[in-house]
């Protein structure tokens, strides 16, 4: 298992900042004045039980859902209300919930779709080699239809696909969901590796204890409100983490 990041960079300037976000699905409010920051170079987790609004947070960042009020800043620029493709072009990569691969396309095509916004074909080809170095398993699967891979392999493709866009930050929605324990470890290792190569990671997770092993900082979301946040090292031993979860589940 990965050792906890001991040399966490000191409070960096935030790469991503959400301020006072309120979100609605029709009449139902999902976020209540949500604010959070993701430091450059960090792994930041958003923890929370089912239906607490985690995926919606990711959709807000990516511009797939528009907040009723509040702002999103990325790399110092406001990106609130921008269309998704433009946000992606600014360097936000994503590993969506349940992977969302293009099932009818080959693994290779999926990876190249990740580089859709890039015009530099030579560099893309180099990145493909580099990414395959990181995920050697995928090299054998390049021509296979993505929909036929196992869950763990699909997760690798989703992560590799996100890297192909050379993002400065990757948003991941429950990257360990539905994976066997062996794959969970592998995926967490890879996230730590990706991060060491300089990519900021914003990660949504239900599985707090695992996520806190690799994260620098974490927020706990309960029915749309941040109820707890702090350095991962502190939260790891914080009994309130467990309580927050139990509370959240009792309420649900």
């Amino acid at each position, binding site marked *: 298992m990965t050792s906890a990041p001991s040399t966490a960079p000191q409070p960096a300037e935030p790469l991503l900042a959400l301020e006072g976000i309120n979100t609605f699905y029709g009449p139902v409010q999902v976020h209540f004045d949500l604010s959070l920051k993701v430091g450059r170079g960090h792994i930041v987790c958003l923890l929370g039980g089912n239906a607490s609004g985690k995926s919606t947070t990711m959709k807000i960042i990516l511009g*797939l859902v528009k907040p009723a009020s509040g702002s999103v800043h990325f790399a110092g620029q406001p990106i609130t209300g921008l269309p998704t493709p433009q946000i*992606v072009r600014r360097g936000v990569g994503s590993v*969506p919930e349940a992977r*969302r691969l293009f099932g009818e396309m080959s693994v290779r*095509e999926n990876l190249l779709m990740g580089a859709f916004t890039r015009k530099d074909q030579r560099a893309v080809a180099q990145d493909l080699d580099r990414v395959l170095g990181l995920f050697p398993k995928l090299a054998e699967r390049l021509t296979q239809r993505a929909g036929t891979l196992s869950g763990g392999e699909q997760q690798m493709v989703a992560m590799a696909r996100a890297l192909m866009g050379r993002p400065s930050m990757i948003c991941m929605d429950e990257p360990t969901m539905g994976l066997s324990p062996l794959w969970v470890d592998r995926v967490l290792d890879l996230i730590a590796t990706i991060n060491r190569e300089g990519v900021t990671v914003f990660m949504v997770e239900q599985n707090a204890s695992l996520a806190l092993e690799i994260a620098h900082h974490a927020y706990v979301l309960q029915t749309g409100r941040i109820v707890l946040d702090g350095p991962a090292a502190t939260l790891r031993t914080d009994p309130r983490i467990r309580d927050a979860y139990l509370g959240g589940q009792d309420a649900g």
Partner: protein
Amino acid sequence: MSSWIDYTINGIIIGNIYALLAVGLALIFGVSRLINFAHGSVYVVGAYAGFVAVTQLGTPLPLTIVIVVAVGALLGLGIERFGLRPLQGYAHIAPLLATIGLSFVLDQLVQLTFSPDPRALPSELLERRFQVGSGTIGALDILIAAVGIGSAALLYYFLRFTRLGWAIRATAQDRDAAQQMGVDVNAVNRAVFAIASALGAVSGLLVGMYYNYIDPAMSFQATLKGVVAQVVGGVGNVPGAIAGSMLLGIVESYGIALFGTSYRNLFAFILLVLVLVLRPNGLFASRRQTPPEPMTGTFIAPSKPIQISYPVLIGIAVVMALLPLVLPNPYVLQTLTNAWLYGLLGLSLTLIAGTVGLISLGHAALLAIGGYASALLSLDLGMPVGASILLAGVIAAAIGTILVFPSFRLRGHYFSIATLAIGEIVSLVILNWESVTRGPIGVAGIPPLSIFGFELDTDRSIYWFALAVLVILAALQFRLLGSHLGRTLRAMRDDDIAARSYGIGLDRYKALAFSVGSFAAGVSGGITSHLYSYINHETFNSQLSILALTIVILGGMGNVTGAILGSVLLVGLPEVFRVAAEYRVLIYGLVLLLLVRFRPQGLLGTI
């Protein structure tokens, strides 16, 4: 007698033409989950653009094709701009209705420009034929096959090896994920509409050359054929659309060989309904394939309906009943009588499409069943006219419900398409079942309206009769909406998953509501047949189905008063202002388009 080879070649050629349509529909469905009902209009515009180019400008064939492609692509961009883009985030059925409105507008504009009369689209290739075994093949056959195969090859290359092609495939598979890769899905939509419409327009040109015949009415049939081919091949599946088109072309060609031309469409629509009900993913879908995402069909914009109290409604009814005494103008009375009869149709559809949420696109078939039933019962069996009308309502309810029953499990668009096809089947059965319906000749000499032996021979008495029937059925429908049954039906519409989990047997409730609604439509058709004294298979055509839907949306879905108001406005006003018939259809299309976009809850609000 032509040989089987000729029929086979003909089937393949027609299949190629359908494929050009169906591939476009599949591409559009793939990226936007929309069944584009304006696709047939693109085909007609393509044919007329070719006609103008050839006859007015004398263009050679390659240039004609280029012109038609350009016109088609531009039109496609327009359809995307007005039919789809403003409706993002609306109910899934909204863009479908918008494209129906657009197709009415486009077809009518073509008709106003070029007249409804058929035109010849001459081509020097038409006469040239080559011997093949015992049959012959024409130069045009070869051209059509070449265009079909060439387009398929180009499309394959485009989708597989270009950036935009990749974006289209990715968007079709997962729109959100494609956006997260940086794909501008709006640009993809535009590209797809342009490509699909260019192919559709070329298809229209080729058909025009093949039969040396074009007319504006080709539009609706082309849409239907494209939809059939696409559904048979699997909605949104491009190779499936090609295979489905070939199958459809060959089935039709052999069907004509065995049974004659008037059966051609019957096979197509029966094939469609069978595939929809038995294999909704199409004949060629692999098992792995996930079904297209469920599309809920309800088009119930939440709204506060305008409350009109019962005393006021009764007051209005009394005023309407007294009207003939103060204003004995036959023209006004006939116009309003007509509006009352459409009001009955509106009551029927507002219950089925509004209260139950089943958007029927074939409602005119119920009028036809009622009209023929009452006409034949009184004419052939000597039944008194009042009784025949009542029985016609029952027959329409029974036949309509039985025909639609297997489709109740379909959702959203699929139910609408099934009803459209069932509507066409009813009209084709009427056309072909000569021993009972007298086929294309129609039924003449239908006895005039009478009740309990008293002949209703004045405008006034007919007016009162229609108004009385409308008021009675409307009152019953108010009762129904306020009852436990009415609440159950609305609960099903708003959340059929929840309703199912409460153990409501959905199909039985739907059948009950459908038969109650069909009764009103059947009665309306019955009365109409006696007023007209002559009906044929085109009296109650598919345009009426769309008019009915427009009436219902205008009034507010599910709203009884709204259905009657909608009918007075849409049927009565054009009459009062003496709008010429061809402009009326244009107005209906525009009204539908604008309603869907700007006032989906209608004038009086949905219930």
